[in-house]
């Protein structure tokens, strides 16, 4: 195995090589560094890299641990001790994390090496990574298009073989949608399955950390490492963690899959629709029974989300005030001036919009009409899923109604951008788990653009959706496709 080919490996394949001592962890870090130096100038997936720290850890890697010696990229909204954690915002300029997030501690305990911080929409608010105040990230399949978001850096890095796997965070689809648009696997765990301690909070009742990987098996490997109860997160669920890898298998006999009729709407790109229909047939041919189901409150999900998520964000982002960390306005005349100008200069437009909207829906006189009503409709959405899961084991839909769009195409119209999250948002509101896996390509302007299939599962039923995703993946070739940029060799 020569260095140029290493970055294309899955975590599982890299693990075998490391354990057979055919490659050293330090060689793996070097290969990634070369790959990143060669292509990240065009791709823009990473915000920061600490090669020296990674090398030190590689030197003492214990390759017999579950993820021993394997570098994992981290979305730059998750604290890694000693590293920046910018949230792609100017307001965290200069901040260095004084602690590890629980997920990072758990990755380290499994032997993994946190490697590089990936770009995102500022504070994870967006669906294209265009809201990053620091950098533009491009889609590896067509550099004129967005990678999706908000975990766009993580998805682009994994798709372009700049990372073996990555962590993202998903508040309304921020792992699954960029995974779909970049042609990789992305899992949003059940709310409470994975600790949020050390994940910078956007919307606390919706946020979850999860893996972005090249294969379903790799997602299961990372879940084995990061899932579980954490005393530092009061919403963490104290439930046993199954072995997600051991549960993978090819047989779908007896599995009942639901196709929600409300998810097959007119706005779906015809090529996306065709790919999803073909995937449903494929799952059926693998033994799964396909059942039509209804989620009647679907049409309200985006509206509910943009009230609840912004309300929670307005409270969470109050901590960025120029006092304890990050950017601070110069020469404030009093404390209100300090707050007002620090937040004016530190936050980008989307973050300001959401804080203002969230402050408004929580304000006296409007709380009942907006926030309280949204919370009640959220409960109806949760009940929709609960009754669907009485009939089926998992639900199938497109992850995104469209493939990757052009940079700048939707940036001026926030509402249109929000509506693109229609298939992913409800899972966060209901607290259930979901995964996006590659299921085909659309041909557009001479480029092949990935299409994602979403599977939604019952609370704490990650093992089941991983199993269904694995059976589908193993019967198709989509996950083996690599974008053109990944084939460009590092400069000698």
């Amino acid at each position, binding site marked *: 195995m020569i260095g140029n080919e290493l970055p294309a490996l899955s975590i599982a394949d890299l693990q075998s090589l490391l354990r057979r001592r055919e490659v050293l962890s330090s060689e793996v870090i070097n290969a990634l560094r070369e790959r990143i130096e060669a292509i990240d100038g065009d791709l823009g997936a990473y915000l920061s890299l600490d090669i020296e720290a990674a090398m030190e850890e590689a030197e003492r890697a214990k390759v017999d641990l579950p993820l021993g010696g394997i570098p994992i990229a981290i979305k730059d909204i998750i604290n890694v001790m000693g590293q920046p954690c910018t949230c792609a915002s100017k307001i965290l300029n200069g*901040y*260095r994390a*004084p*602690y590890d997030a629980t997920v990072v501690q758990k990755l380290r305990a499994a032997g993994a090496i946190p490697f590089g911080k990936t770009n995102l929409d500022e504070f994870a608010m967006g669906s294209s990574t265009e809201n990053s105040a620091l950098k533009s990230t491009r889609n590896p399949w067509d550099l004129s298009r967005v990678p999706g978001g908000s975990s766009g850096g993580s998805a682009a890095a994994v798709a372009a073989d700049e990372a073996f796997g990555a962590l993202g965070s998903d508040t309304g689809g921020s792992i699954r949608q960029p995974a779909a648009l970049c042609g990789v696997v992305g899992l949003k765990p*059940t*709310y*409470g399955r994975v600790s949020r301690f050390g994940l910078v909070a956007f919307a606390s*009742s919706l946020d979850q950390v999860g893996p972005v990987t090249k294969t379903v098996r790799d997602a299961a490997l990372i879940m084995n490492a990061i899932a579980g109860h954490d005393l530092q997160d*009061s*919403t963490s*669920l104290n439930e046993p963690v199954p072995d997600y890898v051991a549960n993978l298998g090819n047989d779908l006999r007896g599995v009942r899959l639901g196709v929600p009729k409300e998810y097959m709407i007119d706005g779906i790109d015809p090529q996306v629709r065709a790919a999803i229909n073909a995937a449903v047939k494929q799952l059926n041919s693998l033994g799964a029974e396909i059942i039509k189901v209804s989620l009647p*409150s679907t*049409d*309200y999900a985006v*509206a*509910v989300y*943009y*009230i609840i998520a912004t309300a929670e964000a*307005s409270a969470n982002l*109050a901590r960025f005030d*120029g*006092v304890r*960390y*990050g*950017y*601070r306005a110069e020469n404030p005349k*009093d*404390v*209100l*001036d*300090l*707050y*007002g100008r620090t*937040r*004016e200069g530190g936050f980008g*437009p989307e973050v*300001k*919009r959401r804080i*203002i*909207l969230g*402050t*408004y829906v929580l*304000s006296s006189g*409007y709380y009942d009409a*907006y926030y309280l*009503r*949204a*919370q*009640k*409709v*959220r*409960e*109806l959405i*949760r009940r929709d899923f609960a009754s669907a899961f009485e009939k089926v084991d998992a639900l199938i839909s497109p992850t995104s109604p469209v493939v990757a769009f052009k940079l700048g195409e939707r940036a001026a*119209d926030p*509402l249109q951008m929000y509506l693109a999250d229609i298939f992913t948002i409800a899972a966060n*509101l209901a*607290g259930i788990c979901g995964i996006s896996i590659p299921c085909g390509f659309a041909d557009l302007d001479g480029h092949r653009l990935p299409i994602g299939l979403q599977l939604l599962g019952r*609370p*704490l039923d990650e093992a089941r959706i991983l199993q269904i995703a694995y059976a589908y993946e193993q019967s198709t070739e989509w996950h083996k496709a690599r974008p053109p940029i990944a084939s460009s060799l590092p400069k000698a």
Partner: protein
Amino acid sequence: MAGNSDLDVAYVARLARINLTVEEAKIFQKQLDEVLNYVEKLCQVDVTGVDVAAHGIPVFNVFRADAPHDWFTVEQALSNAPRQANGLFVVPKVVE
């Protein structure tokens, strides 16, 4: 000035401690009016008798053991402070 919703962006931005330029307030007003028009659709939903959901999977009364453990030192807690002195964060004078 408010647009076609009750939202007055300039006023709410002051509540949220974010200074806005007049130009920014104008753009946000238009964009957020559109979002508020969109969320009006929630008025169509019959929510009579529906309890509020705080979390998808409710958890209640979460406690951890009341035991001391190591946490940040003063130096670590202050390591990112834009201004500090004598082991404290420095802010503009609040009390006259």
